[in-house]
């Protein structure tokens, strides 16, 4: 896999992971182009498309698009299930995950991804094992001030779509 992008229906980038060395300018250009291409596609269309000399595999979960660019000889269907497994991991970790979780806890989304995929290849496909690794890490910071964990009460006007569970549709 060359890179993975998560973006909203409004075209806002929520997560980007690059497995090939590219300069920032090129990354921005690719993102812009790809977000536009994918958003322009109709719902029933197939999940794969040829793009430049790569294959793009994407799937929409509620308000979020998950989009991977793979090499021509890579397997499209298994990539589709990589996306799904990642969504499952997020869902299990956050408990019915929604876009807002990923906005406010973007660092966690990156950590989970790193446990699951490394260098663009699946590192650990067992859901249990990935979550075990993440939870172990969470246990390691017991000494964090308890009060800080309860950061309720910040008022955020949420878009309905952003707070709907990714698995709801």
């Amino acid at each position, binding site marked *: 896999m060359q890179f993975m992008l998560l973006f909203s229906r409004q075209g806002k980038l929520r997560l980007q992971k690059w497995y090939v060395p590219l300069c920032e300018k090129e990354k921005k250009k690719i993102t812009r182009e790809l977000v536009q291409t994918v958003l322009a596609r109709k719902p029933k269309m197939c999940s794969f498309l040829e793009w430049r000399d790569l294959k793009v595999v994407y799937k929409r979960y509620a308000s979020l698009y998950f989009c991977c660019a793979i090499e021509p000889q890579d397997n499209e269907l*298994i990539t*589709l299930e990589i996306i799904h497994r990642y969504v499952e991991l997020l869902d299990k970790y956050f408990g019915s995950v929604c876009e807002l979780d990923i906005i*406010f806890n973007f*660092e966690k989304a990156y*950590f989970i991804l790193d446990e699951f995929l*490394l260098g663009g290849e699946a*590192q650990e496909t067992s859901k249990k094992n990935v979550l075990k690794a993440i939870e172990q890490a969470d246990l390691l910071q017991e000494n964090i001030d308890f009060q800080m964990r309860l950061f309720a009460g910040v008022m*955020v006007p*949420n878009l309905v779509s952003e707070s709907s569970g990714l698995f709801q549709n």
Partner: protein
Amino acid sequence: MPAVSKGDGMRGLAVFISDIRNCKSKEAEVKRINKELANIRSKFKGDKALDGYSKKKYVCKLLFIFLLGHDIDFGHMEAVNLLSSNKYTEKQIGYLFISVLVNSNSDLISLINNGIKNDLASRNPTFMNLALHCIANVGSREMAEAFASQIPSILVAGDTMDSVKQSAALCLLRLNRTSPDLVPMGEWTARVVHLLNDQHLGVVTAATSLITTLAQKSPEDFRTSISLAVARLSRIVTSASIDLQDYTYYFVAAPWLSVKLLRLLQCYPPPEDAALRSRLTECLETILNKAQEPPKSKKVQHSNAKNAVLFEAIALIIHHDSEPTLLVRACNQLGQFLQHRETNLRYLALESMCTLASSEFSHEAVKTHIDTVINALKTERDVSVRQRAVDLLYAMCDRSNSKQIVAEMLSYLENADYSIREEIVLKVAILAEKYAVDYTWYVDTILNLIRIAGDHVSEEVWYRVIQIVINQDDVQGYAAKTVFEALQAPACHENLLKVGGYILGEFGNLIAGDPRSSPLVQFNLLHSKFHLCSVPTRALLLSAYIKFINLFPEVKPTIQDVLRSDSQLRNADVELQQRAIEYLRLSCIASTDILATVLEEMPPFPERESSILAKLKKKKGPGKVPDMDEARWNVNGNTEHSENTEPTNKSSPPSLVADLLPTNRPRPASYSPTILSAGNMAPSHPFTDLLNMNSSPAAGASLLVDVLSDLSSPAPAPTTGPGPTDVCEEHFSRFVCKNNGVIFENQLLQIGLKSEYRQNLGRIYVFYGNKTSSQFLSFSSSVTSSDTLKTQLNVHTMPVDPTVEGGAQLQQILNIECLSDFSDTPVLNVQFRYGGTLQNIAVKLPVMLNKFFQPTEMTSEDFFQRWKQLGVPQQEVQTIFKAQHPMDTDVTNAKILGFGVALLSGVDPNPANFVGAGVIHTKNTQVGCLLRLEPNPQAEMYRLTLRTSRESVSQRLCDLLSEQF
């Protein structure tokens, strides 16, 4: 606010993110961000030492700002500081920041590497994993330099935790992708292969990816992985779905691992061992059988995972291309998917069938689905699926169905999406030419193409139709009649006018007997459209008019009047003006004889690859044009070709024009050679000037020379020069062990070479030095190969400037691709005029099989094991010969290295002997080679022994090397 139950809340960060989200405008957002940046900067610069938590929070904010798309130019130091924190989350944020932002600030790299080093040495698995993730995410050269040699030992150490092994494997994979030269091969590779046997499926999954990447680089080193991968795969596919516990995904056993194992096996040909081979066949059959079983779940994840494995298995079956039953079963399975309700499956089935179509075993089976595919073209709602259908129709096309397929593609073209029109045009043009039984059908098809999709008909397409009409006597009259009729339409595309102008200019005489298409009618028809078209077309028409003057003396006054008119002679466009003036003068002063010579019918075009095919290849990227990608096209094709039989591809009957090389399966092309197209004919000229009439008429009879001088293929010599020259091979053998130097020199010219080779590709820079003080004119150079060699070695020549000034040097680039092992030698032919005489020089071009060597390091044990494996008598070639040079160890060492193999020390029990190993890379295969050279100083003799898996290779290498000592 989402209820985050886990993780460490950073309240400040959450507030900041909310603020940003509340911003009503971009300006407000930028303002808020600048405020925050100022705040963080002051905190970082402040006197008070920040505690770890605050540092983490601010670094995290910076990261958030960066991910929003803003530039961040500070905070790197604080992030690096976090690496040495004892608190896991602080360390983690530090690493995340570095992974995302490190490229922009590399002067901290030594500090970062230091942090990583400490964590790798910590023996704390979570810290080690963080460090390995960071190396894998950044993957920079500096990191590879620092850690590439250390990670293999972490990976294979007995006491490493499973999760660390997984990270280490993929970390190494990433480093190998970015800096393959820095990842050392060695003893650890054998132990990595055994990770395929590991109990932990996560470790196997990660290791399989690594092994696949490494096996692509040096297949010989990882050959033992085949049997382990087959065994592992067999255990997975026969397991009950619950056996693998959490590695079962929606009732499919370890789909990711299965796909990866099947990918690994695609690095190799079918296993030679019969038992292993049948075990693999069983696995593949089981996978195909499972596709027929009722689904265990209605979820799409179940069918996706199951079919992911199935498609990968089919890819392996196609890659092996050796089991007809499996190929046909695969084809039937894909046929079912063609009508599946899932768009994704239809898409993939079309894509996969495209490669099946080029296997001789399954071509016929694929063809049975033609109606379904045509239907897909008409009914699919998604353009990317229709695109796949076009590709498949193209791939399954042969003599038996070409008329139907071309007709369907043409009718689809009328409504096709603009994005894929040009490609369809190219494909139709290629198929129409390739399968033309008679050229009238071809001409009709191309004119139809121009009518339907004129704007998308690229120059290559109409150049090509002209090349063919010029080379085929029997179609010229029909072509003239057809374009004449097509031009009657009140509005016709400019491309049609170009073709029409050119063809009537050459062959209008063939229809001039009919009063309805008399010369004057023809001229008036062309000229009625003259004012509506662009400058290049008008220029072409002017050339057609001067050709008319030669063909039809009776219209000369009419045409002269046109040329003489102010709109031509005083045209604002300098090219048109010049043509009008020159053609007018030419028509006035030249005698009929001279006119007839200058304006003679175009000579046949030399045989060369279709420019359309080259264009399609370029458009689709390397390796994407199935089946016909090896086809060389013979525009001089005549009826004799239809008597040919193609022994390798029984399914497609012989073609009139396509002179197919013996090829029956697609091979992944690793680069797309630049091929001369008709467009290169006048490279310095902005116009599409096929007639090349822009040279001044004073050049007289040499016009024809100019027409051909830029071509890469040897031109049918229009001048009577010296006869065939002797091929010079004086310096040839010196180039066996070196790549650069002077290959030819006489009083006039020096030819120097600089060559570089990588795997099966090579590039030679040829330098032609003019040693005289006067110009070389009409300079051309080309490379010719014997017919056998043409099928083994592709040599593409870049065009050169026809003039070489006195004392100047001219550079030419040759691109070489080795398709299979070869022993002939290509010849470089140079031709130029010096002081009025034509010089012909032919030089053997030092492209030998050993140039495609990649050295292979191996241990003594490996060497002898392989030596024994290559024990069949035909695999060994031995020769004993007398030394021609002083027997110097250092010189011999250098020569063996220059030959391309790795020199292995400590392998031979006799230290005076030389032992080497390497792999010859060709496009089709790789051949491992072992060699041993035993000097006998007393007798001044050598004994050279070569063992490779291929007799012809052993022989050729032995011949080449034995002349060097």
